[in-house]
């Protein structure tokens, strides 16, 4: 261990931030760990900061179990099979309201979004059966600016990460409700973010 870490150094160089972000060089990270094992003040910075980071609306502490890959493959086979079956049906077959809601873009999901203090705050209604939601933001030219996935029904992102300034240019967004395997349950209409 070549680095010596003290409370003063932690304060001066704000070592806790790169440590919890995973960007502190390894020898220094280990020296910092040796320090906070015996320092409640510095440990409080690490623990508190890490908890706040983990509570970011866009973060979801889950992993993709390997066993789900097989389940997803089975689901995909089913979806493709249903697709072929539907293609084989007469073209003028009536479309049920439920098919419009599931496959279309007109499903009401109570989308609300607004720019506040250089942040975009967005929220939508909970969809029964949805395990997560994929939120996508598009520019006025249709380019995808940002995509996030969350289990919550709200999201907050810095306008910087969208590459737009509040009040400039149209910003569109859409929410997809996903089941546990990532399959789409419902998709919202593409709506414009209310300018502030």
């Amino acid at each position: 261990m070549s680095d010596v870490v003290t409370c003063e150094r932690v304060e001066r160089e704000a070592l806790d931030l790169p440590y919890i972000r995973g960007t502190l060089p390894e020898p220094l990270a280990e020296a910092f760990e040796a320090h906070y094992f015996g320092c409640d003040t510095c440990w409080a910075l690490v623990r508190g900061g890490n908890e706040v980071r983990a509570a970011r609306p866009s973060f979801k502490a889950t992993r993709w179990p390997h066993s789900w890959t097989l389940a997803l493959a089975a689901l995909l086979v089913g979806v493709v099979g249903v697709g072929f079956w539907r293609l084989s049906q007469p073209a003028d077959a009536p479309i049920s309201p439920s098919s419009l809601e599931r496959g279309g873009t007109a499903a009401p999901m109570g989308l609300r979004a607004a720019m506040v203090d250089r942040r975009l705050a967005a929220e939508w209604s909970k969809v029964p059966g949805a395990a997560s939601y994929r939120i996508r933001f598009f520019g006025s030219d249709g380019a995808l600016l940002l995509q996030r996935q969350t289990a919550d029904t709200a999201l907050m992102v810095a306008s910087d990460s969208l590459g737009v300034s509040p009040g400039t240019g149209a910003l569109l967004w859409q929410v997809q409700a996903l089941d546990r395997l990532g399959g789409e349950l419902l998709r919202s209409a593409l709506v414009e973010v209310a300018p502030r």
Partner: protein
Amino acid sequence: MSPLQGDRYSGGLPLAEDRDLAGPYWERVRLFALRRVGDPATAEDLAQETLRVAGAVLREGRLSNPDALPAFIFQTARNLCMQRHRSGARESRALGRLQAEHTGQAEPPDTLLLIVGEERCVAVRRALARLESGDRQLLQFLYFDDLPTADVSARLGVTPDALRVRKHRALRRLAVALGDAGDVTP
């Protein structure tokens, strides 16, 4: 701090005889181990083993200087992680290569965040919502947006020294809002 404070995060506790050590060290050792092994369950095993070893050394009176306990626990955790790393290195390298090939993912995930359970995340979000807007904004800049401290200082119009003080205070008030007040040092 309660001896059982380590139960805050999801996961099991050490054996009963080592619980006196769990309060101050359980979370630290778990986080330390998680950063090395990348898997919450393995990190928990290593934390439990570390505290078991430390408990045994204390019971046998082999640690004469109580002030050396943090360093002893740190070194024990480090040694156990290195042992685990050696035995699992070959397998994990192969798995890592395979995973990278399949996912195209080169960047390591935010490993440390895996230690915070979903229930705790919900509690933290609620506590954040109860904070004053100044505290909340500061914490969001630093921990949601990962902004450099210089940028946060500039945005909030405060000096870096003032930002440090405000960060401490905001985290302390968050701990109070979470009901961890007795667990927070000044």
